[in-house]
């Protein structure tokens, strides 16, 4: 008897997802035949199917209140965009974007920027990513994420100009790649070195020696160097602001940053699109 029950449950398991698809009319004729036969002979699955059907009806009864002025607001916005001549181009300069996100590198200073890339981003939920590990992290990530998203939207916008039919695909890729944030660290060309964490607004000093010590390292490698390093405290300070699963990378000038970001993005997340970029 027990063996029969196990076999029956195994049989039911095979049909569970199909019950839902059957309700939605998404099965082909052969599958419909099988599921109907199963439902006719299995009280539990029949009950589940009926429950799903009832839920489906209930959900349809939940009406979203549509704003009365939805249409007029949409058309006003579109007409406004037409009047402004908005054409989807990303007009803001890199300088503007950097300033927008609080990267306050002095005018004319040759900045060295440390770029931390996210291999497997930690993000808040809703994008299929893991949630930030704690609320403090989220606060730090927010500004960083905006910056990265903006940069990659810029990149997608550039591509959209040249290959418009691919624009949506590229934007999808940008989002699906779930690019996280950049931690930015910078130093002046003079003896005064500093870094700033774009999210926390912390400004501290960072020497060449320290930056060279962890250049190109992922967090695990960089972390393993901390204990034996003469710059242990400084490394801890920096790594404290770098997201887990990032790679630390320095560039010589501020203007290199988007290029490096694009290279990283292409290599890491868009290998198929890399070819598309080269065809531009």
């Amino acid at each position, binding site marked *: 008897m027990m063996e029969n029950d196990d076999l029956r449950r195994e049989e039911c398991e095979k049909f569970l997802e199909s019950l839902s698809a059957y309700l939605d009319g*998404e099965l082909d004729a052969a599958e419909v035949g099988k599921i109907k036969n199963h439902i006719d002979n299995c009280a539990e699955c029949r009950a589940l199917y009926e429950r799903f059907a009832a839920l489906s009806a209930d959900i349809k*009864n939940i009406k979203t209140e549509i704003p009365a002025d939805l249409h007029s607001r949409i058309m006003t916005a579109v007409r406004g965009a037409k009047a402004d001549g908005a054409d989807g181009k990303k007009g803001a300069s890199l300088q503007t974007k950097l300033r927008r996100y609080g990267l306050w590198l002095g005018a004319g200073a040759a900045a060295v920027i440390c770029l931390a890339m996210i291999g497997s981003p930690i993000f808040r939920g809703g994008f299929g990513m893991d949630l930030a590990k704690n609320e403090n992290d989220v606060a730090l990530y927010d500004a960083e994420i905006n910056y990265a998203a903006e940069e990659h939207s810029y990149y997608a916008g550039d591509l959209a100009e040249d290959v418009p039919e691919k624009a949506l695909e590229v934007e999808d890729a940008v989002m699906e790649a779930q690019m996280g944030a950049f931690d930015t660290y910078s130093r002046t060309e003079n003896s005064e070195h500093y870094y700033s964490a774009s999210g926390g607004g912390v400004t501290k000093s960072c020497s060449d020696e320290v930056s060279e010590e962890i250049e190109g390292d992922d967090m695990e490698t960089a972390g393993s160097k901390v204990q034996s390093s003469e710059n242990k405290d400084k490394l801890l300070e920096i790594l404290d602001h770098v997201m887990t699963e990032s790679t630390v990378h320095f560039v010589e000038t501020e203007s290199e940053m988007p290029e490096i970001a694009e290279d990283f993005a292409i290599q890491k997340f868009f290998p198929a699109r890399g070819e598309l970029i080269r065809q531009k």
Partner: protein
Amino acid sequence: MAEILISQAPKNHEKRDIRLAELALSARNGSESAFEDMVKLCERGVYELALQVSRNREDALDISQDTFIKLWQFLGSEASLDEIKSWYSYVLRMARNCALDFLRKQSIRRHDSLSVADEDGERKDMEIPDDDISSDPVLSYYRSERIEAVRDAINSLEDDYRQVLVLRENEGCSYKEISDIMGIEMGTVKSKIFRARNLVKEYLQKRNIF
């Protein structure tokens, strides 16, 4: 066994896509009224999806506006229209991308429930009115309590599950359309919808609502 209604993938979606394709061509050729008709056909679905992603009415409005601006820009570009197989899916996908982009830029944290800020800035649950109230007060009470519970159950779902379920139940999208909109495989759509329904069922069972 009681008669169970099987909902087929509605053929009126095909008609809608054909109509949208015609309007898109007219809009590209300069017809403003054609573009406006496209908006009318898609705005409700766009707003609902934007609301599901953003969980905020005002943001959903902004996202809806962004979506149609993007659509207008796309129609004004040189991109081929022939590549678009399902215009409705295309527009909703655009809406979802706009919503995700909007959220990133706004650094909006995930809310546990649909909410709006009242005049004191406190967040309160957004009311989704139930238009279908029976005239029998007792039946009305039980029905509205159930609808309320189902709504709570849906709001408790993770974003992807909630979105696929709403696209299926409220928009009547086919699995193929949902696959296009969400950018996920058909098999994933099938399993996510099943899983979402099961989670709603379990939520209700825990609250002794059957």
